[in-house]
């Protein structure tokens, strides 16, 4: 069929410029086309207002509260600028909470990196078609169910009468579990009331937040860079250290921001699974609730923000974002 035949099948428009569509929508379309920035501002306004007023606003209010102090006799808040509340954070009882939480967050992050990397690497490099769909489903599916349900499920798994103890008994490895539980800091009467249990539950609930950014970062590393490295004489280990890891680092940092900050702020997991020793989230919860010490709660809440700021600053200095 010739071009003439194709065009002849419908009426050719009479003029080079088509008439305006008319109506308000047509006028709006033309206006948005002429002023794309106007459309942009219009679209960004609601989320910016939300973020600016509700989110940043409440953060600032929080920051302000942390500079107030509580009158120890009356229990009333003294609205005068002071650093006394921050000094309270350094008292051994409070400082212990911070150290415990930061240590837990760091360990959870490292474990998440170690567990997530092979999964993310497989998904980014090998999985295709239905396997890729299965990967996304498997990683995302746990996020569909309530986080409380998952944590309680872990409590049952880790309990003394739970499936894990049963399984280890079948393998004749109970001595290993008992030995571990006898250790200071990490041990306890059973896994479900030990810091180890808290750690396991944390790694489980935050793992998807590490896998997904890591997989996205690894997927952006062109396959031929791995081949080029191998071609130039690098063993698989050298290729990992010199090419894959540096290029996946932005994803690892992004994932670790999730796992680290989520662990820093969480108060439910250690409440349900773990020892009676508090984490920052629990301290905030109890200080602003039963204790009614809003300034100390606010000061506790500022700690994760400051730690994350330092963490990001350090990651940037290490060049984690150079490959972006």
């Amino acid at each position, binding site marked *: 069929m010739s071009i003439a035949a194709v065009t002849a099948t419908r009426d050719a428009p009479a003029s080079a410029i088509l008439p305006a569509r008319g109506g308000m929508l047509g006028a709006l379309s033309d206006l948005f086309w002429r002023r794309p920035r106007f459309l942009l501002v219009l679209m960004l306004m609601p989320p910016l207002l939300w973020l600016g007023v509700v989110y940043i606003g409440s953060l600032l209010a929080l920051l302000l509260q942390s500079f107030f102090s509580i009158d120890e006799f009356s229990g009333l808040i003294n609205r005068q600028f002071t650093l006394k509340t921050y000094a309270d954070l350094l008292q051994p009882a409070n400082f212990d909470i911070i150290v415990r939480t930061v240590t837990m967050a760091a360990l959870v992050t490292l474990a998440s990196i170690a567990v997530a990397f092979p999964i993310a690497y497989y998904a980014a490099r090998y999985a295709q078609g239905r396997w890729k769909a299965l990967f996304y489903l498997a990683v995302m599916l746990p996020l569909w169910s309530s986080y409380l349900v998952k944590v309680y499920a872990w409590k049952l798994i880790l309990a003394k009468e739970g499936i894990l103890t049963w399984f280890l008994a079948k393998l004749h490895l109970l001595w290993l579990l008992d030995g571990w539980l006898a250790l200071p800091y990490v041990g306890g009467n059973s896994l479900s009331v030990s810091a180890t249990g808290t750690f396991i539950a944390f790694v489980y609930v935050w793992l998807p937040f590490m896998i997904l950014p890591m997989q996205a970062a690894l997927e952006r590393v*062109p396959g*031929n*860079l791995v*081949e*080029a*490295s*191998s*071609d*130039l*004489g*690098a*063993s698989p280990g*050298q290729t990992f250290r*010199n*090419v894959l890891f*540096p*290029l996946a680092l932005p994803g690892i940092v992004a994932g670790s921001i999730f796992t680290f900050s989520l662990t820093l702020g969480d108060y439910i997991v250690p409440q349900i699974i773990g020892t009676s020793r508090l984490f920052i989230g629990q301290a905030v919860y109890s200080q602003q609730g039963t204790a009614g010490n809003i300034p100390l709660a606010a000061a506790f809440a500022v700690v994760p923000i400051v730690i994350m700021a330092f963490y990001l600053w350090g990651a940037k200095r290490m*060049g984690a974002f*150079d*490959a972006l």
Partner: protein
Amino acid sequence: MTPAVSFQKVARHFGAVKAVDALDLDIAAGEFFAMLGPSGSGKTTCLRLIAGFEQPTAGTISIFGERAEGVPPYRRNVNTVFQDYALFPHLNVLDNVAYGLMVKGIGKAERLKAAEEALALVQLPGYGARRPAQLSGGQRQRVALARALVNQPKVLLLDEPLGALDLKLRENMQEELKSLQKALGITFVFVTHDQGEALSMADRVAVFNEGRIMQVGSPQEIYQRPKTRFVADFVGSSNVLPPDFVQRYAGQRRWGSLRPEAIRVVRDAGNDAVQARVSGVSYLGAATRLTLDTEGLRLHASVPSGSTVPEQGDAVAFTFNRDAIHLMDEAP
């Protein structure tokens, strides 16, 4: 002399797809060898078999006499210039070039000095501090070349390295690669789908089609004496003549080929001229290419610029020397 690369009955199948099938090939040490073919013809798979990124399904591959099946890429003294260069984006140019020496454990001062020298060799001295993203396509190409050459490979593999460059740059790089190869004496194996590039650069050319080699020979042999219709068509843009036509003009019932420049378009039809109608005229600069329809056959003729050129639709006649018809091996 031991060949640089030797394939014996090599096959590489991907499921039902025979990317390379029962292939025999010897590449001599120190030669500039081109693998030419359309996309999907198996030439890149061959290159990847030499580099070690692919393992043969069957057959043996030796590199300078040593068996290479099952040897990983990082244990082969063979380096590749990748089609899209594959420079490491997180390293600067100097560290990119020094990478091969770095992973071999050569000291920093020594490897950076060698990298500087390699950059000078590809005429990019002083570019070491830049990132690959700050370079033009042609410069990246040179960095990729330096990164491979700094390892002093026994064989250098080039996978369509000039494909992404514009015409002028490509012509410069062709000459430069050729003189570099002569100066270094390293065996170059070059994959391309551009016949002009293969003919102008290589000492020998292998023409690939559907996982097999159709013909191996010098550029002159390939161009002037194609063995099959495919080679004639793909390499020379030659006119492929059917057996009946060849029978009439060359006396043998075989497929033949006739190069466009061997056809002379004449005004007055002599008794040995062939009548034809001009169905297309393309101006190519140095010459004009005419498309001639005759006896149900479509032929291309090349008319040098400056001579009078007929117009589309004109009735013309053409002649050619009978011995300009090359008879191909392929049976009718």
